[in-house]
Each structure stands twice: as structure tokens, then as C-alpha cells.
């Protein structure tokens, strides 16, 4: 193991880690928005939209991100739609993550009992008020563990964007292996970088899950 070399390349990994985080953050935020939209469409059974949303969810869940990226990045320009690699990655992650987030929200919404909704109605709240003050907060509390797990999933999924030549952690690693043959050092840094990003998140999630389970407001 070449410690000097590791120090030398660490700045490259820092850059790449920042990039990975940036991409993942945008992906997660868009996934949350798409997921929320889809779950609400399904929850309130919006007629026409419901069909589209369900097809989207099936497509998203049953195809690999890598193929989605290849299609977006290499396929679409041939029919006149030219998107940058970063845009493709963001679209791909949002397309993938959206259906996972929709599932997380669905679980939360379904956990709110009919009795709670009726209790809200019976004190004279409108449907919109019941949604805002009763359904949302309760659903969110139930969804948070799955939302967190999905966020981690999305971060991990970014590990394939080097396939469309984005300079993430995998890209840097491959580069260093290719140029310097310092395989061990590069792989070590790769694992360390992912652990630094994912381990705290994963521990935080475990902690939140426990808190929600044991001290949650549920009666």
C-alpha cells in the first residue's frame, strides 16, 4: 500500500465524492417530488392520471438504470433529443427513484386509518384540512424509514453513471487503475469514500427507525 500515493489521489476522490453527492441530492429531491405526485394521484384515485402513473411505476421498477441511461444518452440523440450526460443521469435517477418514493409514500398514506380521517371530518374540517393536518403528518412519519432507505439506494445507484462518462467515484477509480496500475489504493479509496458517505446515513436511518418504532406517537 502506497500511503503517499493515497494522499496524492485523495483530492481527486474528494472532487468525485462531491460530484456523486450533488448528483444524488438532485436525484433524491426529484424522486421525492415525483413519488409524492404519484402517490397522491393513486390515493385520490385521479382518473386518467392514475393509469399513466401506474404505467410509469411499472416501467421504472422493471428496467435497469443502466439501460435507461444508455437509451437516454446514446439512443435519444439519434432521434433529435440531445441531452447532456449530467442531465441524463439526473433524469435516469429521478425516473428510477420516483417509483420507489411513490411506494414509500403509498405505505404511509395507507397506514392512516379511515377512523382518523372520519375523526377529522367529524370536528368540521374540510377534506383539504384533513389531508393537511391529519393525513400528511401521520403518513410522513410512517414513510420516513422507507424514504431514507430509498435515498441510500439512490446514492448507491449513482455508481453506474461513469458508463455515460460522468466523473464520479467509479470513474476516478477506473482512471487511476488504468493510468497508474495502483489497483489496491484506488479500490481502498473507493470503498472508503462510499463508506464515509453511506455509513453515517445508514446509522442515522437505523436510529430514526428505532425512535419511530419505540417512541412513536402511535397508540
Amino acid at each position, binding site marked *: 500500500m502506497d500511503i503517499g500515493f493515497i494522499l496524492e489521489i485523495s483530492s481527486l476522490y474528494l472532487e468525485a465524492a462531491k460530484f456523486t453527492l450533488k448528483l444524488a441530492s438532485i436525484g433524491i429531491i426529484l424522486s421525492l417530488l415525483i413519488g409524492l405526485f404519484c402517490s397522491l394521484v393513486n390515493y385520490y384515485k385521479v382518473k386518467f392520471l392514475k393509469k399513466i402513473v401506474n404505467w410509469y411505476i411499472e416501467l421504472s421498477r*422493471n428496467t435497469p438504470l443502466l439501460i435507461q441511461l444508455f*437509451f437516454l444518452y446514446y439512443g435519444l440523440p*439519434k432521434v433529435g433529443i440531445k441531452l447532456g450526460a449530467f442531465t441524463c443521469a439526473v433524469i435516469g435517477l429521478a425516473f428510477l427513484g420516483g417509483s420507489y418514493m411513490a411506494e414509500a409514500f403509498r405505505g404511509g398514506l395507507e397506514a392512516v386509518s379511515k377512523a382518523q380521517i372520519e375523526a377529522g371530518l367529524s370536528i368540521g374540517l374540510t377534506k383539504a384540512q384533513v389531508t393537511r393536518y391529519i393525513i400528511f403528518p401521520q403518513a410522513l412519519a410512517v414513510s420516513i424509514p422507507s424514504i431514507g432507505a430509498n435515498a441510500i439506494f439512490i446514492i448507491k445507484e449513482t455508481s453506474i453513471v461513469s458508463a455515460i462518462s460522468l466523473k464520479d467515484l467509479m470513474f476516478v477509480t477506473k482512471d487511476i487503475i488504468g493510468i497508474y496500475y495502483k489497483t489496491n489504493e484506488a479500490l481502498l479509496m473507493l470503498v472508503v469514500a*462510499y*463508506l464515509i458517505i453511506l455509513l453515517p446515513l445508514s446509522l442515522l436511518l437505523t436510529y430514526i427507525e428505532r425512535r419511530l418504532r419505540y417512541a412513536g406517537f402511535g397508540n
Partner: protein
Amino acid sequence: MQDLGIRVLIEGNNLYRLMGGLLITIRIAIISAIISILFGIPFGIVMTSKNKLVRFVCRTYLEAVRIIPVMVWLFIFYFGVPKLTGIHIAGDVVSVIVFSIWGTAEMGDLVRGAVTSLPKHQKESGKAIGLTNLQIYSYIIIPQSIRRLLPGTINLVTRMIKTTSLVVLIGVVEVLKVGQQVIESFVLQSPSASFWVYGFIFFLYFIICYPISLFARKLELRWKE
């Protein structure tokens, strides 16, 4: 020359080649899935052990496998292991090894979940009506565990198939790689080939995975009661 358009898919033996590539993908997925199930079941049962140390070791394995992206594991085995041991392993073998390690962990967790979620009184009520331990397992525990397990296992298989798409990145010639080759060799006759070929592969994955997930969901719904 006129663009072939979607016909690029059936030009020459292209369709045959693509399907051949797909078969390689699926073979890797199926072999890995079988290994994962075979090892995952005992692993899951071990995970329910009362011994704290055993549980800790299992847990560590599971979490370690989970927290690192599969792509990174592929890199470690493809680039790292040869460097450390001097043995070069072919990409498809690496894939099977990595997917099996990952799948065993996930399968084990499913099994653990299925076994521990069985209410205790099931076992006790079995005892109460005078069944032997063996009878309790074969009539009560195992059938119920399988019911709880099957949907998750089927979902794991679809995840496995989807994840198999990554092996192209460690040089395995599978459907995506064959696709690239087709696109390259038809770059003149069919400039739009990459749209059709990648679109087709997207579609292929969908028609494989969609029925399987549909089946899993049906089972889940049917067995919910």
C-alpha cells in the same frame, strides 16, 4: 442510403445475436439466484440463532454487503482480487461470485424475516394439539414461511436480473455489449441504430421483469389473508 430505422433489429442475424446476449445475462442471473437461494436459506436460519456472536457476524456480513454498491463489489473482485492473488478471473465468473455473495445476504434477510415474523403461538398451538417438533416444522412453520418468503424471493430474482445489466461494465459480453457491437457495425446503414437497439434492450428487460413482479404481487395479495 436510407436509414434502416427499427429494421436494424432484424437485419442480418442481429436479432439472433441480441437474444444470445440476453441469454448470457439471464444465465448469470439464474445461476446467481440459485446459489443465493441455496446459501441464503441456511444463512437466514443461522441469523435467527440465539447466539449473540453468531448473530453479530451475520449482521456484519449483511450490512457490509448492503452498504457498498454492487458496482463497487464488481470492481473489487474484477480488479482487486487478481492484483492481490495473481489469479485472473473472467468477468462472468466474477459476476456470479458477486451476485451470489450479495444475493445470499439478501435472501438470508428474507428468510430471517419470514421465520421471525411467525407468531410464537403458532408453534405453541402446534405443541398444544400434540404435534412433534418435526410435525410442527413440516405442517406449520415451513409452509407458512414459504408463503411469507416467496413474494420477496421472486422480487429478489427480478432485482438480480436488473442488476445483471452492470456486468457489461466489467467487460462481460452480454446483451448491452452485443447491442453496442450491432450499433457499431451498422453505423453507416443505420445511423439511428442506437435508438432502436437500446430501446429494444430496455423493452426486453421490461418484458422479462414485469410478468415476474406481477406474479410476485399476485401471490402477495392472495396470501395476505
